[in-house]
């Protein structure tokens, strides 16, 4: 995913690690940019699935 604020491209796993110290991290579904800290919502499962199908199709080509 790409941070809408600083433009850093990162994976969701890298974005969650910065939230450990936050008081609301238990109920929060935002991903934090490892560079600037801007939060972006996680992609819902359905959208991730469609994206993975698209990626597979492109690779086959």
């Amino acid at each position, binding site marked *: 995913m790409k941070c*809408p*604020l600083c*433009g850093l491209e990162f994976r969701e796993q890298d974005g969650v690690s910065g939230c450990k110290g936050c*008081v*609301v991290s238990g109920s929060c579904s935002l991903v934090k940019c490892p560079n*600037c800290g*801007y939060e972006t*919502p996680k*992609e819902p499962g359905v*959208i991730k699935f469609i994206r993975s199908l698209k990626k597979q199709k492109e690779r086959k080509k």
Partner: protein
Amino acid sequence: MSLLNFGKKQESCRCHGNTDETTDGLQKVVLVGSPNVGKSVVFGYLTGRYVTVSNYPGTTVDVTRGKGRLGDKEFEIIDTPGMYSLLPITEEERVARSILLDENPAVVIQVADAKNIERMLHLTFQLMEAEAPVFLDLNLMDEAGRLGMKIDTGLLEKEIGIPVVATVATDGSGMDILKENITGFKNRTGRGVKYDKTVESAVQRLREMLRGEYRISKRAIALLLLQDDPDIKSMVRERMKDNYASLEEIVEETKKKYSQPLNYIITIARQREIMEIIKKVTVSSPAETLDFRERLSRLMMHPVAGIPILLLIIYGFYEFVGVLGAQVSVDFLEETVFGEYINPFVTGIVTSVIPWKVWQNLFVHEYGIITLGLRYAIAIILPVVSTFFIAFSIMEDSGYLPRLAMFIDRLFKKIGLNGRAVIPVVLGFGCDTMATMVTRTLETKRERIIATVLLSLAVPCSAQLGVILALLSGSIMGLWIFAGVMATVFLFTGFLAARIIPGEKPLFFMEVPPLRWPKLSNVFTKTYTRVEWYFKEVLPLFILASILIWAGKLTGVFDLLTNALSYPVALIGLPKEAATSFLYGFFRRDFGAAGLYDLKTAGLLDGIPLVVSVVTIALFMPCIAQFSMTIKERGWKMALSMAAFIFPFAFLTGYLVNLVLNGLGVVL
């Protein structure tokens, strides 16, 4: 993840194309660079059809490899994941660096975005410091040209000391020269950065003490040690064994000589060197050559022209949230759904099941969990916040946010404030609690305190801003008075803080992506997730507030507090009923604003008192969660000092606004 685990190539991989391909014995050409600079297109030119895509060992990061015949020789070409710096933040950057360190490349090509050359050269300098066999491919030269930018690549080559090739990979321009540079590559020592005496002396001492073989220069290792790179530290520790402690001592000793982290000191020195080069090698032609999108982009960031654009955007938000969110949705949910159905139905059930009035009050009547907590959350906050998040997602997806950050940065500089405080301030418009946590990423104590004060005082979060916009719906003059007061408070506090807490004013730079039309799917996803997140966070708090109010009513504490608050409330010209809303405001600014909304609907609040109440509550500390985060980040003493300043300051500002508006005979 350790660098030392990256020595072997993965046995099983997700491959396609010619899986029998072997790359053993071939010289390696590694492509590195930030994401979206055209690495994959360059890779395609060098390799042709057959490539393998596999996870880098021990990670889930994709690395693409292929073979390419250049001249009469065959090479293995490796396309690495996006990398901004040799000091990694993400796993992808770690993998890219590991390939550089462990795969012994014959040639490293840094593919760079020509239009962002200033930012790109940081990695170039780091690669030169590491003595990597590197040359620079300035790609996307056509886009730079369209922006009126000219780069003298010959002069750049002389300045930095390594070969520079200009390309437009998408149409193949310059690719032949790029190929020639690979086949005829001769490793050259590039220009180095001269750091200050303290850093240079530490680097020298570390270099002399380093033992063992490293794939990159000892100078680069020393610099990465000074910047606390965990992977490099563990690699050196393993090689140096017992002697590592003396290296650590030098690093700690050097750190103590600066108030800012060494990473920052080193980056700033490199940036100065880069700026010198940029001044010599680039020429930007007049703005007439720019297209509409670029002109608009520049206007958005301009310290003067940016103001009307920002006001126009606020007005758009106001119309969208105020009309669609507040007037249409809130009216329907509050008046019809709750007023006519849910409240009478639940009240009927509760009063028939629970005979005791005291317990009935916990769930229904004036301050009940359902009739107050749930009603505020679902009928008032939810529709307002949802429409606000739609507008916010559109703004975010269009690329306006980085421009807003640059605009605020320029404004900050005018009042003597440092630009990097921009990031948490912009984040505060999303959620003040998280933004307060982000202030820890600021380098100096001074910056952290200023940013926290600004966030606590003058930056309403998105939910609060939504409810405030809804409150002011129907009074456009009220909106501009509110915006003017908030901007004045923000700039005045920043100006004052910058003078009270002196210090250096560091540089601020960030990537500004192109402006674009927002995608419907992105807007939907972002809005949906934000509403869900907000609702999960806010609903328990509203229920808790209802329970506390119920308990406060039982014990008499609630009446005592509202009575006490009614004095400052009367002083700023508001009806005494507003004291209850201000008490809610101590929990969350938006909970308080929802209370004010109730008063407005009941016809008890309009005109000047409405604007005064909105200004006052917007200056309150955002919410209990943000306050606890301030305690966590800045300590009890600082958090309580901020609260002791903010609450009286909010009432004082309300008092002054009331005085001025009445004095001027303003009619709203």
